[in-house]
């Protein structure tokens, strides 16, 4: 088992009233799964992804990641955990505008213990694999949206994570680009065994997954 969420609650308090963002979430994820989170805006998809990705805390419940109780971990330890096992892909890519494609992809490695030659090899591999060797010296603004997202995915994959969390990865792309990205995810899942959890609006994108979880107002509902 890769991760397990049980009875996760998250809320914000405004003027004495609690507004629930997540309400009693129970999910088990096995390695190699491809899960789609669906639901309208504000249903809690992103919040859930952030909680799974340990970027956001939750208020109640138990979260085990590779049998480690996340809620009890110190921040330093939590960072260690997610930078080793989790990669993020964002809707608006969040590439560093001031860094080249090459440097963007290299970035996560800088926060782990890799020698410079190892980093070189890993980035070269990744550029090769995504067919963007020719673009390695360009800056993100010089690329199309689809290409930017490709770089975003490459960056997420560079540290060989077990889990990719993708928040509306095709939200800013046209349908052709979307399809290419989704195909890529599918390939990663099937061939490399990377576990993927994506949040999406689109039924079409969700259909690439092996399982779909529907969310509404922070609750899981039966599709």
């Amino acid at each position, binding site marked *: 088992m890769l991760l397990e969420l049980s009875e996760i609650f998250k809320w914000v308090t405004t003027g004495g009233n609690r507004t629930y963002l997540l309400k009693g979430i129970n999910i088990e994820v096995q390695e190699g799964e491809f899960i789609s989170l669906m639901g309208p805006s504000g249903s809690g998809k*992103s919040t859930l992804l*952030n909680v799974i*990705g340990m*970027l*956001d805390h939750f208020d109640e419940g138990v979260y085990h990641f590779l049998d480690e109780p996340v809620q009890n971990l110190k921040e*330093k330890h939590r*960072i260690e955990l*997610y*930078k080793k096992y989790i990669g*993020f892909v*964002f809707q608006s890519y*969040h*590439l*560093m505008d*001031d*860094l080249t494609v090459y*440097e963007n992809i*290299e*970035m*996560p490695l*800088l*926060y*782990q213990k890799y020698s410079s030659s190892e980093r070189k090899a890993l980035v070269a591999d990744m550029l090769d694999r995504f067919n963007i060797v020719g673009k390695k010296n360009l800056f993100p603004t010089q690329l199309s949206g689809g290409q930017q997202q490709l770089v975003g995915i490459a*960056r997420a994959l560079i540290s060989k994570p077990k889990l990719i969390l993708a928040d509306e990865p095709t939200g800013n792309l046209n349908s052709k680009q979307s399809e290419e990205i989704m195909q890529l995810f599918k390939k990663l899942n099937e061939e490399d065994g990377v576990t993927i959890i994506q949040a999406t609006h689109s039924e079409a994108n969700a259909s690439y997954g092996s399982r779909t979880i529907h969310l509404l107002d922070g609750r899981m509902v039966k599709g």
Partner: protein
Amino acid sequence: MIKHNLLLFFRNIKKYKTTFFINLIGLSSGLTCVLLIALWVVDELEVDTFHENTVYQIWNKFETPEGTRVMTWTPPVLPDAMLAQLPEVIYATAQTLPEWYKNTPLRVNGKTTKASGIFAQKDYFTIFSYPLIEGSKNQVLTDINTIVISESLAKKLFGSPEAAIGKAIEWDLMKTQATHQVSGVFKDIPSNSTTQFDYVLPFEAWKNAIIHSGGEINWVSNNPATYIVLKEGTDAKEFASKIEGFSKLQNEDVTADLVMTKYSSNYLYGNFKNGKQVAGRMDYVYLFSVIALFILIIACINFMNLSTANASRRLKEIGVKKALGSSRKTLILQYFSESILTSFIALLVACILTIIMIPTFNDITGKSLSFELDLVKTGLVLSIVLLTGVLAGSYPALHLSRFNPVSILKDQLKSSWSELWIRKGLVIFQFSLSIVLIIAVLLVSLQVQYVQSKSLGLDKDNVIYFGEEGRLKQHKKAFLEEARKIPEIVNIATTSQNIIGADINMTAGMVWSGDQEERRSRFNELRIGHDFIETMGMVLKEGRAFSKKITTDSTSIIFNEKAIKMMGLDTPIGHTVRYGDIDYTIIGVLEDFHFKSLREEVNPMFFRLENKKRSSELVARIAKGKEEIALTKLAKAYSQFNPGYSFDYTFLDSDFQAQYVAEQQVNKLSKYFAGLAIVISCLGLFGLATFTMERRRKEIGIRKTLGQGKTQITLLLSSEFVKLVGIAILIGLPISFMLSQNWLSGFAYKIDIKLWHFLSAGVITMGIALITVITQTITASNKNPIEALQQE
């Protein structure tokens, strides 16, 4: 990682060039200022500190009806008495003041050279650390027939220091001529010594010369300065209070108490108040240190302000980095290293600027500073830079790195109120400082102008004076006759002393109503030749000046107004006063004239006709515009009487100006510094305006689509900054009012502070600030709103 951060740093610079250059210009000019001022301050503090012994100066303190007076002049017999009677004193010497025998003639093989000399006792070179090249320090002045000369004088006269030893030099001072053998050569006096001289003669020779010219050597004749060195372990304070009445015990006629100060402190604490040493130049050391600090703070504020603004732009970077697994520590480190790196770049620029500007700076300050970094200075500079970097980087490093990456990336982070207030507060602070500096400059320059244009009670322009040397003494009358024949010389006369610069002789013992208590009042006294009052352009208020035709004028006396007021005489003319067992009749009252700096009140003063035996100075008034020809003719006449002598003269005006050197330096420097302060402040304001406009683009876009006009928007945007500067002015004005009152209180004659001084400074500041922001606000309000809205 380091390479990565460096890349981000440099690309950020490239992207936000304006911000970076504002930072760089502001910070480096601020640092340049600090470096220059630091060099100056260190140099000031080091004046006279190179002596190995702790040398103390003994002063005479007189109680007079006008208050306590402390004077350099002490009894010539004092040093020996102290040495003999006080076991704490291990060395003591008398020393004549360097200004007495400035540019005096020395003759070697019939050739005359002019140099400045002092007379001192045998331990002089043991007490003071003026290193000797030739001769040993406890030998050179033991014999009365010796002379010790400086290295450059030795080279000039004999070619080298070695060659000088044993050679004969003839000197001619106070009507005494004598030939002495060179017994030693000292290294040239360093420029950071307040006592400057080219040769030293034994004090015994001076005593002989005084006696020879009719003077006395005793406890009531006060002439040379006295310096002593105390036995190690002596409590100086205790000793000082012990010796207070020392002279009075030696002789019942002595009225002076003794005051002791550290010789090395005299330069910076040169003023006395109620017999206690108080600050003098030290005030300027403080002033400039504070200015340097202010300018550095202003530059740092810019840096901080702009880096916070810049950091908010880089929030996304922080978010992404955190999401990718960067720890907070890494981010903190990154931001600190960035700001420290920027300060170091600024330091580099500042060092170059400092080196370029040192010659100009030396010109203005009259110093010979050089940019040499020793260990202490390097440490000081590095810590200043480090501190600047840490200060500037603290906000992004500590505050921004704390945020949750999710909220950053979702753009949920609104800049907090506290952040906004800090930024505004910093701008207010900056401009408050600027306005204080502007007002300071305004008042200093007005005061200096006032001082220079104030009616002095005499006409200081076109007057020269020169010493009575060589054969001039015997043939004074003939020389005066000769000089009067030169048509370009308006008037010429003799006087016992030059009236400006050196302290005019002080005397007591005047009785004007028969009360013997009056003897204690102290007057300045000048013994003058005929025509002196006319030559100097002094104004008679009542009565007449001395006249050649009236033979009884040898017992006539002229007072200044101040003296008449002090003596309380209603009808002074014809009144008889008694001085030195002679009755003098008052024949005239002079309008008060300023012979001292305007810092000081005019003293009571009187004039008597020259006692023919004494040596004196000559003053001459030259016709306007004929200076050159008059001086050539005068020099010719002079050389007829004194072949081989060079004719050295000084303009009274330049002596007068020299009294205000400090003020003039402050005036010039403060102009530069205040200008710099406001430029740096404006740079900061400009940067902030740019940043604000960028942030408010959407708001401006919405306003425009809703139909608000350009002018209205420009006004709206500008008013925000006007408010800030307005608050700064309100804070700055009272502070500068208090400061300027304080500074002006040091002058006996000063300008009145007027409201318009402050208002105009406020208006100028506001104007400059407005010009700075208005270009930005106009550009912002001219932008197409669609652009702004689309990008959101």
